């Protein structure tokens, strides 16, 4: 996936790193810390450069890719009145928030682990603005509003001005377009400064290869001082190879509420990163009845579609693919992982294993099937104990041998198997398996 969300803290760090290069006439202090506990926060407060943690009123909130933190009551900015939170209070709050599971209004559940702590910035509502940029269709779009803060989503069309910027638009035209669309309700005294900031914001977004960048609100204080109160950002991670220095040390965390990857998923992801082939695994329902081992990205989608159509999505245990010419060893490891997972919970109807795939372009089918057969040898008893029916469909280089080998091995091991080649429609084995 090309677009990956980053933490608010990391987004601000990229701003800080390049601020002087881009934001001429404006100043940004970048007083932010990212911590995973109250103790860590207090430790940082002892360091040179972080004296402000002791000196200023603080704001603390989780930094875990989800929004609407205010509405979820997950922003600490007041004890008795806004702007009175001390270091100790912030540390205590953080420890309390991570001590239990949290359920968001949107329904996601999980544990809070990362918090961003910043100084409380006193300002007035009319100093708050909204700005964001992203790609829509083939164009970049810059969004600007005189109204910052969380209200902006209500009444988006009336409050937000859009500027469409085609990829080949010269800078002079882009600047003209931005200036022409500055929201009318920004005070006249601020219009020029806001336009200047918006233009530089867009260039920054563009050059840093952001896929999405939103500041809501951006606060324009006196003397060009800017405060980024809330930031959401996604990077185009395919640009990573050329942006390593510009981005610095960036982490792409898993979305909150997505249960952390299982041990097996992590192991497959690790094998994938070491291989020239592609190995992917997502467990959808560990107790699911139907397990798939599908070669190829497109095929893995149509098998999932077809299983959902014929059986219902709750029966589908996993989603994933092995493709791009994996070695026999890699295929064996992948198969073992699936077989292990699918023999953990029993199902009265028995299990179904779909070894599917389209007609390969260059993957040697017999070679990859050798890996699956080796895994059969290890898991045959368990698969039989779970009353597993195996359906195979594959084509491509050397497929006749692959199909013959896998059939022979299953028969020898006493496994139930049906084997089909390119003369059978790719997903038809799902129908056959479920009609039984």
């Amino acid at each position, binding site marked *: 996936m090309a677009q990956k969300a980053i933490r608010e803290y990391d987004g601000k760090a990229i701003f800080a790193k390049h601020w002087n290069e881009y934001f001429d006439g404006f100043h940004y202090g970048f007083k932010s810390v990212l911590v995973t506990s109250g103790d860590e926060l207090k430790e940082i407060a002892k360091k040179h450069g972080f004296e402000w943690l002791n000196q200023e009123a603080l704001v603390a909130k989780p930094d875990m890719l989800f929004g609407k933190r205010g509405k979820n009551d997950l922003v600490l900015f007041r004890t008795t009145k806004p702007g009175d939170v001390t270091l100790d209070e912030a540390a205590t709050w953080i420890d309390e928030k991570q001590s239990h599971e949290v359920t968001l209004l949107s329904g996601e559940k999980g544990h809070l682990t990362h918090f961003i702590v910043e100084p409380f910035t006193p300002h007035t509502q009319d100093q708050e603005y909204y700005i964001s940029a992203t790609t829509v269709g083939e164009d970049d779009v810059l969004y600007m509003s005189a109204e910052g803060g969380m209200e902006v989503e209500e009444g988006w069309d009336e409050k937000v001005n859009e500027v469409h910027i085609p990829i080949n638009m010269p800078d002079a035209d882009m600047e003209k377009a931005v200036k022409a669309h500055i929201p009318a309700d920004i005070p006249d005294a601020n219009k020029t400064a806001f336009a200047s900031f918006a233009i530089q914001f867009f260039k920054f977004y563009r050059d840093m290869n952001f896929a999405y960048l939103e500041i809501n609100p951006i606060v324009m204080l006196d003397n060009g001082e800017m405060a980024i109160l809330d930031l959401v950002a996604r990077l185009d991670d395919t640009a990573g190879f050329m942006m390593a220095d510009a981005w610095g040390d960036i982490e792409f965390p898993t979305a909150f509420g997505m249960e952390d990857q299982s041990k097996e998923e992590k192991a497959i992801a690790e094998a994938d990163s070491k291989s020239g082939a592609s190995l992917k695994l997502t467990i959808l329902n560990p107790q699911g009845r139907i397990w798939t081992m599908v070669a190829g990205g497109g095929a893995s989608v149509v098998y999932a*579609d077809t299983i959902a159509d014929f059986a219902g999505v709750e029966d589908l245990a996993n989603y994933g693919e092995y493709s791009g010419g994996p070695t026999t060893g890699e295929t064996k490891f992948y198969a073992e992982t699936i077989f292990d997972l699918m023999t953990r919970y029993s199902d009265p109807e028995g299990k179904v294993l779909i070894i599917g795939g389209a007609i390969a372009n260059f993957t040697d089918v017999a070679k990859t099937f050798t890996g699956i057969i080796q895994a059969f040898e290890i898991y045959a008893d368990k698969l039989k104990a779970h009353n597993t029916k195996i359906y195979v469909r594959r084509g491509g280089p050397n497929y006749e041998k692959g199909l013959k080998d896998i059939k022979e091995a299953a028969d020898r091991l006493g496994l139930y198997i049906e084997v089909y080649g390119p003369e059978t429609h790719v997903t*038809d084995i799902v129908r056959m398996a479920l009609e039984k």
Partner: protein
Amino acid sequence: MSKLYTKDTQAIFWNNNKTAIQRMLDYDYTIGRDKPSVAGIVAPTSGNKFEKFFYGPDEIMVPLYKSTPDAVAEQPQADVLLNFASFRTAYDVTMEAIGIEGQFKSIMVTAEGIPERLARTMNQAARDAGVTVIGPATVGAIAPGAFKIANIGGTIENIVNSKLHRAGSCGLVTRSGGLFNEISNIIAINADGIAEGVAIGGDRFVGSVFIDNLLRMESNPDVKYMILLGEVGGTEEYKVIDAVKSGQITKPIIAWCIGTIAKHFSSGVQFGHAGASANADAETAAAKNIAMAEAGIHVPASFNDLPVTIREVYNDLKSKGIIGEIEEPELKIVPKVRKKKEFICTISDDRGEEATYAGFPISSVATPDTGKGIGDVISLLWFKKQYPEWATQFIETVMKTVADHGPAVSGAHNAKVTARAGKSVVEALVTGLLTIGPRFGGAIDGAAKYFKYADDNDLTPAEFLNHMKKVGVPIPGIGHRIKSLKNPDLRVEGLKKFAQEYFPATPLLDYALTVEQLTTSKKENLILNVDGTIGILMVDMWRALGYDEEEIDEFIESGTLNSFFIAGRTIGFIGHILDEKRLAMPMYRHPMDDILYDVPVAEEIK
């Protein structure tokens, strides 16, 4: 452009991806193309000039180039670029190719994960230049029976099974490359194969989208109906719907969007490609399938029912007479076992009735009545060309001129000493030949190289002398032991006279003579000598024969000029060796009084 490719289409393949190229050539052979579909390969880091591939049972050589501009300079007919560069360089390669005005009609980009902003810039530049980009992140496209990109269609067996070896009547567009083969197979089973197929690529930003390809197919008379395999995410299918509604597309379309599963999962699970992520309800597979069906596109109930829909549409068109019968072409079968050749020969051939020199039977150049001389034989065997008479006579003149220069020169001396040691003719000969190099005979190469350099860079004679002083090399080809302007070397005079009379022009000689005027004004014997004259006139000869400067530089670098000296002087050396044998001269020992002995005792190093 109603068709993406024809049977004459040739491509430049960027990156020496041997397996993929071999698959293309196997396809070419199978379908009986006249010319291979790959005209050249860009391999920036390779030192080789060509790569060998099988073409059916035989091998052919496909030229390698350092860059795309180099490749198109030699292969201007190749209007397709197959960009197999990695995601790091694919953008630069594509942009460079788009910049070569009017050269490429289509560019296929295989790399997955090109930075999105670069992909967008690249796709826009291509649109502005009227170049069709297939990809990025694709296995490519195919025009069955005409042209196939790299690995698309898989093995040759699968291609024949899926009827991708000859044109059918369907236009196929998919996003996924893996499913492209699958759908081709379904079409082969349920209909009559495809006329043109494109896998547009899995990245979010691809150059040509569904509608671009479908509009082209609409105007391609070979396409009678189209199949579109879309995916969850994006709104490209709606452009197709609009084109159907507005009547821009009138041919029947069968369509299905995969990824209906995605609606069951709120977020986090990426089903399919980078481009496959629904950001709005309208982008879900289900919504698109419904919208397409409402527009009159043939949409099956599920992916599993796609074969049935294809069969229905095909049979309907056939019963209406829109689709006729296809005659199955005869196929040439690529042999299963092929042996690579260890050696290559491009100059002569001894396989037929009579051996040939560059295509000419030996008897046709050997006897006097053929009117051919040794110069003709050299032009055939060394240059694979039939040089005109003035050039072959010049070559002979050179050979005769350099045949011998007496017994005292070092090469002849070495040959004589070896012969007197009782060695054979060949042993004595190579001893003499091994002496040829930068100091003995090498002035021919050197003169050609430096005078050509001076002339190419428009140096005045004075600047040239200065340049050589800076390089620290005495000018090769200038100077003689005793000869001078007043007492000219008659061999040189003869060569000059011949050239001036028979060469179409002698620009380098003319230049060299202005240099000689300057050098002889400094010292009487700094004349253009025989080595210099030969080297310089060879350059003039090749220029007049139409070789470009790069080819001539290559001749100089590869030592071709020296070869004339080697071949000519062999005659003289053999003469000296035979002379020694005839005279039965004893073993030679050099007189001790001719050696300065100065041998201190070796110092001890502790």
